């Protein structure tokens, strides 16, 4: 079984730090928020100050509190959607790739159909028909988003499964008479861990975007604070055009940061899956010492100017030499 040892590049470390920060915020955000985000106790449209780090809305609500509280709904919906979508794509993708034949035809068709239908318009149509009380339910929204976001992962997993299905360990499991679903989920799935992880991050990324967008156009309950509803209220009160940047910029930046963090972690996973994407193995310090260029040009193999020290592997072994 492949363990997921993601290369520890600066990109990945930064990504993990960002994602970690927002996960912490998801948990503690509502607790550390200085105010009730809906309370209209303050004067309207205060600029940022020591009291209100990010000022107040036109209703006199504390924007910083909204940002902290809003983290939870945003992240929970995205997480639920990411999880459900990944489970869906895992089931469909692995089954299609492993079973082949008619089931494959059907399942592939299903995922291709979902890939071809543009996600957001479908989401809007479904959401428009949703009873208002369901719109405030993070799980319902998460489920619907996952419905439009699973197909890509399924396609990738199907291809990967097909490359695994004739491998020895799968054959062996087949020969000893393992049940099909056991082969699929306890033999094949663990070997797809990197791909699964990548598709999980990808769907979370997609779900953050989808949820925030739905909220922004007013299709989720406006009584639940998330970064999208913040943007919705800012937009409906013309905050952008009135130069109230402290109202609409922070949630936008938070969304972008979460997305950037996830994408950076994904870089690491990509490098894990595709070794060619990894750095060439010469650290910059070593290159400098040996007078080598920063990058190796194809067709111009570097020649080290300083005579190479004998590699350790070739040095005489003191235990053997007389």
């Amino acid at each position, binding site marked *: 079984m492949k363990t997921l040892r993601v290369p520890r590049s600066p*990109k990945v470390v930064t990504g993990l730090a960002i994602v970690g920060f927002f996960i912490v915020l998801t948990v503690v955000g509502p607790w550390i928020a200085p105010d009730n985000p809906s309370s209209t106790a303050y004067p309207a449209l205060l600029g940022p100050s020591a009291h209100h780090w990010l000022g107040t809305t036109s209703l006199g609500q504390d924007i910083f509190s909204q940002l902290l509280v809003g983290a939870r709904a945003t992240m929970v919906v995205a997480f639920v959607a990411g999880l459900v979508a990944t489970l869906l794509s895992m089931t469909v993708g692995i089954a299609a790739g492993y079973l082949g034949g008619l089931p494959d035809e059907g399942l592939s068709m299903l995922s291709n159909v979902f890939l071809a239908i543009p996600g957001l318009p479908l989401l809007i149509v479904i959401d428009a028909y949703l009873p208002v009380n369901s719109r405030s339910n993070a799980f319902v929204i998460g489920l619907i988003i996952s419905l439009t976001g699973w197909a890509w992962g399924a396609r990738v997993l199907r291809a990967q499964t097909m490359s695994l299905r004739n491998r020895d360990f799968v054959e062996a499991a087949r020969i000893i008479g393992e049940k099909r679903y056991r082969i699929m989920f306890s033999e094949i799935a663990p070997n797809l861990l990197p791909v699964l992880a990548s598709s999980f991050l990808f769907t979370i990324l997609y779900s953050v975007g989808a949820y925030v967008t739905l909220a922004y156009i007013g299709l989720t309950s406006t009584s639940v604070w998330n970064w999208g509803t913040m943007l919705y209220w800012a937009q409906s009160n013309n905050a952008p055009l009135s130069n109230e940047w402290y109202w609409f910029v922070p949630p936008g930046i938070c969304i*972008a940061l979460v997305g950037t963090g996830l994408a950076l972690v994904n870089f690491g996973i990509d490098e894990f899956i595709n070794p060619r994407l990894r750095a060439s193995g010469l650290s910059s310090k070593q290159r400098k010492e040996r007078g080598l260029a920063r990058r190796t040009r194809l067709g111009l193999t570097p020649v080290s100017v300083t005579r190479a020290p004998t590699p350790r592997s070739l040095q005489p072994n003191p235990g053997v030499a007389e």
Partner: protein
Amino acid sequence: MRLVTRRLGLYAVTAWVAVTVNFLLPRLMPGNPIQTLIGKLTGQVTPGEIRAIRLSFGLGFHQGLIAQYFTYLTQLLHGNLGVSITLGATVSSILRQSVPWTVGLIGVSTIVSFAVGTFAGTWLGWTRGSRLDSLIPTATFFQAVPYFFLATVMLLIFGSDLHWFPVLGAYSQNVTPGWNWTFVSNVIRYGELPVISIVLSSVAGWMLGMRNMMITMVGEDFVLMAVAKGLPRRRVIMHAARNAILPSIANLSLAIGLVVSGALLVELVFNYPGVGDLLLQAVLNEDYPLIQGIFLVITLTVLAANLIADVAYFALDPRTRTEVAT
């Protein structure tokens, strides 16, 4: 050829699924939204209009579900998408007004974004390891910013503050629409900032994808052979890029859906008279026939775009055309 038929079949099925979802949604959703809507409208509009609305849902004649379905399909085949509740006009006439704007905006943006992203990705992939690599986190950030948020910021900075671009709407109030240069140039001027916003949001995806594929391709023997043949660098890069672009084109189907989704909201921000703006109005007013009409038209347009991408793929990859080894 078999592959082409397969793809055509897929799109036919997709179109059918979209139509059926459209038909079923209002009927299966809890709370029967259509009945609620009609109840709300009773008294506000004439009984004739209510009848038209019921018709557009296929609810005209107390039929069973199957019969309703066929009525619905027949109407669709005649281009009849029903009547908008709020705008009073037929959905198809409304869409005829706005779809060209959306197709123009998204089409131009996608082409620009694909071209720029592919070129940049080719170069980034070729020079990987160089200082240019530091562009990647920035590109990732732009990729993660929601389209509508970036558009808002662009509108504020370059439209409202700096007045570099005219904003709001697709053309100035002072020009009369028509096929003359004054109007066309005005449309281009007004389109610049929305196009730039969409390109900025979507270009990173193409760029990073192309970069990864370039790196993979540069690792292939035939690229090394191009160097061994003493070809100029430009030609070596072409050998790799010509192959690296194939997955990008294969991914167009996924990407077009995402770009369309994002671009609809950019229209909103810029008050662009396309279907995005229309969709939001329809949603706010619970104008179900219009919402559904827009969904259908968008889906069909995306499918058409996919078909174009497929044709390009078949043209560029000989391995899809022949499978025989002699």
